[in-house]
């Protein structure tokens, strides 16, 4: 059944692109600060929910999305200034708890301000599915896949071709040395949190027509995005993209050919096995431990 296989692949790549978009958001912050931001899922949620309510207020969709993305970027910057910057050099577990605290806090705020309902954004280019060799794909899936590719390309070029991108990497690698080299490390952190939050919010806008959104969609998305980023190798945009798509395709193929009951299980078993063979993920860099 070729058309079935193709349908599973389409599903896998769509869901994978969702994971990749979230994983890409993790990448930037991790590269700048060595922090894995467990509140990344809330940025996705804020992007979706913000757009829903800006739309309800009567704004046109592109403007609503822009406001939601900018607003989320401001929240990301505030989070860095008010919390992460003040907790610099704290141990990893403390940082994990700060970001989880932020996640709970943001959910709480959205729940009070926007309520607990589930919402859906209208699809950008209509709902009529496109046919492709017996499989179907919604136009919105193409938007999500395209969005993931564009964000990936932008980040990839940023880290390899721009001075600022190299400065961000230098900041994470050795803050002290970076500062000696004249890099404004505080600015690099602020920049990465702002842009990461914007990437998350953009993901939220793109996926909400497919996945729907509510105040509590962030955590499960963040977990999958985190898993995808680690699978690919944290910190590498290529890893985030490949990890995300791999995870999505794995889930879809398992659901299609093995059993839908254990599709998430297969994904995590692959992660466990892969990490025990390659402890830094697919594209992660081997780091040397400092004594």
């Amino acid at each position: 059944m070729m058309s079935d296989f193709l349908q599973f692949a389409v599903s896998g790549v769509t869901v994978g692109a969702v994971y990749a978009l979230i994983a890409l958001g993790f990448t930037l912050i991790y590269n700048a600060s060595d922090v894995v931001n467990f509140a990344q899922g809330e940025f996705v949620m804020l992007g979706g929910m913000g757009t829903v309510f800006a739309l309800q207020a009567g704004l046109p969709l592109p403007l609503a999305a822009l406001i939601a993305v900018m607003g989320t970027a401001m929240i990301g910057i505030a989070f860095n200034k008010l919390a992460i910057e003040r907790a610099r050099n704290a141990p990893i577990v403390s940082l994990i708890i700060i970001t989880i605290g932020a996640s709970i806090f943001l959910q709480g705020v959205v729940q009070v301000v926007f309520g607990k309902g589930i919402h859906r954004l209208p699809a950008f280019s209509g709902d009529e599915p496109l046919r492709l060799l017996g499989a179907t794909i919604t136009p919105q899936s193409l938007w999500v896949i395209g969005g993931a590719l564009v964000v990936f390309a932008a980040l990839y070029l940023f880290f390899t071709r721009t001075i600022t991108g190299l400065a961000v990497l230098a900041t994470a690698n050795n803050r002290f040395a970076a500062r000696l080299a004249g890099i404004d490390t505080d600015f690099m952190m602020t920049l990465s949190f702002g842009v990461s939050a914007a990437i998350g919010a953009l993901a939220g806008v793109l996926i909400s027509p497919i996945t729907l959104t509510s105040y509590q969609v962030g955590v499960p998305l963040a977990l999958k995005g985190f898993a995808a980023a680690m699978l690919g190798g944290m910190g590498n945009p290529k890893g985030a993209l490949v990890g995300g798509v791999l995870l999505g395709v794995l889930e879809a193929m398992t659901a299609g050919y093995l059993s839908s009951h254990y599709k998430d299980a297969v994904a995590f078993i692959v992660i466990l096995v892969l990490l025990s063979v390659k402890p830094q993920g697919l594209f992660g860099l081997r780091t040397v431990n400092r004594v």
Partner: protein
Amino acid sequence: MTSHWKAIALAGVASLALGFTVRAEIKLGATLSETGPASFLGDPEAKTLRLLVEQINAKGGIKGEKIKLTIYDDGGDPNKAKTFATRLVEEDGVVAIIGGSTTGASMAVIPVAEEAKVPFISLAGAIEIVEPVRAYTFKTPHTDKMACEKIFDDIKKRGFSKIAMLSGTDGFGASMRKQCTAVAPKWGMTILVDETYGPKDTDMTPQLTTIRGNAEVQAIVTPGFGQGPAIVTRNYHQLGIKAPLYQSHGVASFSFIKLAGAKEADGVRIPGTAMLVVDQLADSDPQKKVAKDYMTLFEKATSQPVSTFGGYAHDAFAIFVDAAGRAKSLKATDIRDAIETTSKLVGTTGTVTMSKTDHLGLDLDSFRMLEIKQGGFDLVK
């Protein structure tokens, strides 16, 4: 000096006594999943209870006494539900507990209520809550088994017997899947494909592709609640599947049509309550007024569409108010006795008649088979 102190003491006693008379009120408790994965249930339930208590207090309460409502948010966690139930009984001194939005939370409350001899009206679906019958435990929602039977009855009427199931792995979906599988043979149904999806999944096309791949499947039954069923419906439309789709009472609400999209949801059938088709009911239907009143109250106050779940809370509260009105006294044990003798009480879910052996008191007729047409619900005759 002494007289001065005496005056203060007197004033204190007086205000205490005064406070006491004002505070003579009926204490009602609830533990609900206002947040967490089951907030889709708990949120409308909590809002409904608050509105109804406000409404009845404005009218002077029960037997002239006002109701004081305490709601705790257990987040759907049975461990928290048990702690809050203990708190309601021990600290707040309630005479009845409503709640347990989920089956797990309800099962955790049961031993607390039974030990403290406080009546407990659960808002969760599973049949285990009232079977075996426990002295102080009641519930309002239909059981999942009834929903399955209503769906199977309709499938049979269409002349079909081979079905596929696609269930959520949350408590609601899993429980209904179990019940449907159990009663399928009785209705001559053969389950050819049995798939599941996680409550937070974002795409169910692989499972639906597998179902589509089986040419013998005549109808698809999909137990679940929250966002999952809406995504299932959209994926079903995307794949152009021909076999009719049955959703569960977990999504019997206008918000489901909005989420899934009117075009995508067209033709989907749902076992639901009278509330959703209130204008199509005959004027002689006793549920018409009850459902309409509740809808008006809820939608005006919250500007959200009513759901089956809010209706469950409405009915639980109606049972409590009715029982408290008839009870010998406003003591918990007397209220329990009165609840057990509830007779022909019309709620949004159906007409309730309890007995010593039946602590649910609904029959299959309380479900109506609805079909989504042009963005609204149509009563299937």
